[in-house]
């Protein structure tokens, strides 16, 4: 059962492009803060701040290893958000498909076949 609160937290976490990029990176496997900071022109503390948001949202976990606490993706809450998003996508995809068909039909009307 998807709770609104969890979805809310997940969506807030996903609303930021840096956090989305971090999650996309972590979908390829665990990474350290330094590794995660690399592609962004961002200080380590700034990246750490985003990681805290993601950790609080339950989207990632951090390892306990003292030196490099690797970040790992926690897919479950994301799956719930993905289900929601997927429904929205499917609704509008179907409408867009129908609309595309209609537009072709309307444009074809003036022409002789």
């Amino acid at each position, binding site marked *: 059962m998807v709770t609104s609160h969890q979805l809310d937290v997940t969506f807030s976490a996903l609303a930021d492009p840096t956090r989305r990029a971090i999650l996309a990176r972590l979908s390829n496997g665990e990474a350290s803060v330094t590794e995660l900071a690399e592609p962004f022109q961002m200080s380590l503390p700034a990246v750490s701040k985003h990681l805290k948001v993601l950790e609080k949202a339950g989207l990632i976990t951090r390892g306990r290893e003292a030196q490099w606490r690797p970040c790992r993706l926690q897919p479950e809450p994301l799956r719930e958000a993905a289900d929601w998003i997927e429904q929205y996508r499917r609704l509008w995809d179907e409408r867009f498909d129908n609309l*595309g068909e*209609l537009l072709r039909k309307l*444009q074809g009307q003036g022409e002789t076949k």
Partner: protein
Amino acid sequence: MTERPSTLKILSDLEISMTREFDAPRELVYRAFTDPELVPQWWGLRASTTIVDQFDLRVGGAWRFIQRMPDGTEFAFRGEFLELVPPSKVTQTFEFEPMPGHITQDTMELTETNGKTLLTVTSKFQSIEDRDGMLQSGMEGGANESYDRLAELLETLKS
């Protein structure tokens, strides 16, 4: 015949948008949104029939559609036109009648380049409950495929 796939964007915790390019001038796309003869041909789920009960196309005017499912079940949706800017923008509210008071605002924006129209639909929810409820409301018509949506979401996140 194949159109480019839609792009989905999460704009905030209460806003989501979908964009697709259509091979048609935007005047025509605008017409498809504002002509009561044309709207039923694309708006409803493919398996259902959409009946236009009300379509008062002016700012503050009301619209009401009835969706009839193959099994004869009917449910209605209603809303109000908030903004009509031909041929570039339509803003309207959306309400599923069995869940009154939960109103979503949908904005359709059209830009044209070289005869092709880029359509962006942005849905803005009033609250988290509305956001989550909207899709539970009669939008469950599609088959529930069990492919890995997470992979798709992560693809979305990269863009």
